[in-house]
């Protein structure tokens, strides 16, 4: 006769199991998933308290909060996945204010049928990213939607941080004469994702640049505390972000095409697919705008940091009632670089 061990609970089958509606039901199945996956991966004092919220002291200074939802497809790509992307993205949004990111919250919407093996991979990637960045995920939530109503998994992350006194970084602070800097090559992430789409694959692997930038930002602020603007050019690319900053600040910009750092492979992939790299997303780069006299020190600090090795000064803020972003092309003319319209798709024509 077989014996059933007392208190035995069958562990979650991460190898072959799938998300089902009970995982979002609030009952034992959900508790078990949270325990065996999320708690185990993120593991910190707040989560161990097993409350619905996390409590912490906040140091002096202004508090900064940012949130981001992540719906990327495919979920896994060279250089990263939706998990670490969601951690990096929110850490970066917080860091762009000059704040030191402190804590993260993560909400998951899981689609019924999503393989638990993939979920485990995503969560462990998130946990690793949070650990490497020293920004713990202290609270979270999980819901499940019916099959067909989600893309596998959607993740929303919210982050909080504190801005040290004396730091005032904001999109409206650019002034004529300021220099515009970019921390490295553009277009990597968007091309990596696009080239994974069915039927657009290359034999060459192009990697996403997803990274947490708060360490770089800290080094930059140490070298040039009076930085005016910081922003990461995610969706819509460099061009769209520059237009946002120009618009917010109420001035124009002129950049030089030949100064914009680009990975040769990303450039070539754009040629193949008919994409304009100025509009392609980045997930591990930032734009900085500072007074002319601070530019050299800022550039040096960026280049000294592993995430800023290819940093460059690409342009200048000018007085312009239209708030246009203009570019001196390598070809020798000047053209206006507009906001991205619609979504950039590959073309054959």
């Amino acid at each position, binding site marked *: 006769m077989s014996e059933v061990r007392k208190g035995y609970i069958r562990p979650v089958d991460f190898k072959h199991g799938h998300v089902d509606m009970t995982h979002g039901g609030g009952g034992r199945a959900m508790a078990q998933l949270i325990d065996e996956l999320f708690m185990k991966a993120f593991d910190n004092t707040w989560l161990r308290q097993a409350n619905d919220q996390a409590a912490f002291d906040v140091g002096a200074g202004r508090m900064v909060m940012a949130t981001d939802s992540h719906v990327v497809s495919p979920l896994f790509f060279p250089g990263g996945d939706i998990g670490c992307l969601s951690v990096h993205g929110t850490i970066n949004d917080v860091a762009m204010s000059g704040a030191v990111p402190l804590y993260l919250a993560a909400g998951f919407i899981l689609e019924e049928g999503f393989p638990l093996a993939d979920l485990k991979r995503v969560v462990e990637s998130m946990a690793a990213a949070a650990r490497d960045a020293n920004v713990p995920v202290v609270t979270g939530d999980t819901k499940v939607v019916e099959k067909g109503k989600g893309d596998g998994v959607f993740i929303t992350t919210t982050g909080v941080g504190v801005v040290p006194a004396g730091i005032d970084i904001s999109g409206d602070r650019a002034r004529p004469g300021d220099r515009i800097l970019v921390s490295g090559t553009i277009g990597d992430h968007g091309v990596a994702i696009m080239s994974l789409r069915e039927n657009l694959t290359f034999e060459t692997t192009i990697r996403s640049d997803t990274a947490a930038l708060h360490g770089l930002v800290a080094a930059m602020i140490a070298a040039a505390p009076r930085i005016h603007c910081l922003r990461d050019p995610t969706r819509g690319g460099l061009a769209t972000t520059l237009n946002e900053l120009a618009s917010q600040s109420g001035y124009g910009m002129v950049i030089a095409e030949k100064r914009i750092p680009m990975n040769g492979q990303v450039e070539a992939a754009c040629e193949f697919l008919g994409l304009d790299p100025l509009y392609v997303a980045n997930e591990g780069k930032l734009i900085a705008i500072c007074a002319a006299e601070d530019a*050299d020190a800022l550039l040096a600090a960026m280049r000294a940091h592993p995430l800023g090795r290819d940093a460059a000064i690409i342009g200048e803020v000018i007085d312009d009632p239209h708030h246009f972003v203009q570019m001196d092309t390598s070809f*020798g*003319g000047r053209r206006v670089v507009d906001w991205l319209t*619609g979504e950039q798709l590959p073309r*054959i024509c």
Partner: protein
Amino acid sequence: MKYIDEFRDGDLARGIASAIAREARPGRSYNLMEFCGGHTHAISRYGLKDLLPANVHMIHGPGCPVCVLPIGRIDNAIALAARPQLILCTYADTMRVPASKGTSLLKAKAQGADIRMVYSSADAIRIAQENPTREVVFFAIGFETTTPPTAVAIVQALELGLPNFSVFCNHVLTPSAISNILESKEVRELGTVPLDGFIGPAHVSTVIGSQPYEYFAEEYQRPVVIAGFEPLDVMQAILMLVRQLNDGRAEVENEFTRAVTRDGNAKAKALVAEVFELRRSFEWRGLGEVPYSALKIKQKYAAFDAEARYGITYVSVPDNKACECGAILRGIKKPTDCKVFGTVCTPENPIGSCMVSSEGACAAHYTYGRFKDVALVTAAPDQVLEVVR
């Protein structure tokens, strides 16, 4: 990138630009049409207009296969995609073209139709092989450059025995479009659209060769210069056209000698002739019915012809009354002449096809050109940027 970067050299551009300025005779107007959408794109993206003297005018032609695809044919494609279990494979260019009732392939996809963007007709064949129980239709568009790849796919489908694969053929022909423009009232009789010469398409010509244009040069007495796609190619072609017009010549010249010969690609042409034949007439968005301007699949390959297989009937759908794409495609009007340009009709919300494709005249003007209508602030930060590094 070899054979790309060298043809984008700014110093050489200035040299050619000064030659054009020297040789274009004052008091004479040079009205040149670049037929091909890729050339429209190059002119816009590299700001070539800035490098031309005021009396050299570029007119955008209808060489954008997406722009000339009629609404009714997109409706047909959407209807195919709506069939249960059918997979529609398409180049990404067609996804956002506005069809009837505000739909598009992109919107149909959002509503659940299985529409897949492909880079190549070979991908459509692979999808058919991987999904033997599902019908797979390849939405074939394009001029003579893109037609041979479709021919290869159809022949392969026969050889591989792929009963679930078929092609919805919308291939169109360049010479017919050029004829249509030159035959239009405004050009031929009224002379209201001065058209002095053509920049011939680059990659179409690698397939068909330079020979087919000889008829136009002769019959209509207008020079044609076939040009590559890079900005230096376009500049050089403009210089060659200016010289021809000054000399009173009307010849076919080839600037794109590194890829185009007089006879073109015999193998590709033979394959196209094997699989396709001329349609008596085909509607072009903006141009109306154009005789002998498009291809259909031959009877021999009828098994792979989606029109035969699914009994597709074409219903012509007129453009929005406010849309001026027709006139713009023929070079009779400019984007700024259209009442809805930039207001109701934008790249986000395109009313007509000239705005959808990034090489359509309206999209090109919206993205690159409309700023010319405004006085730009000319600052010179270059000396500042030289300080660093």
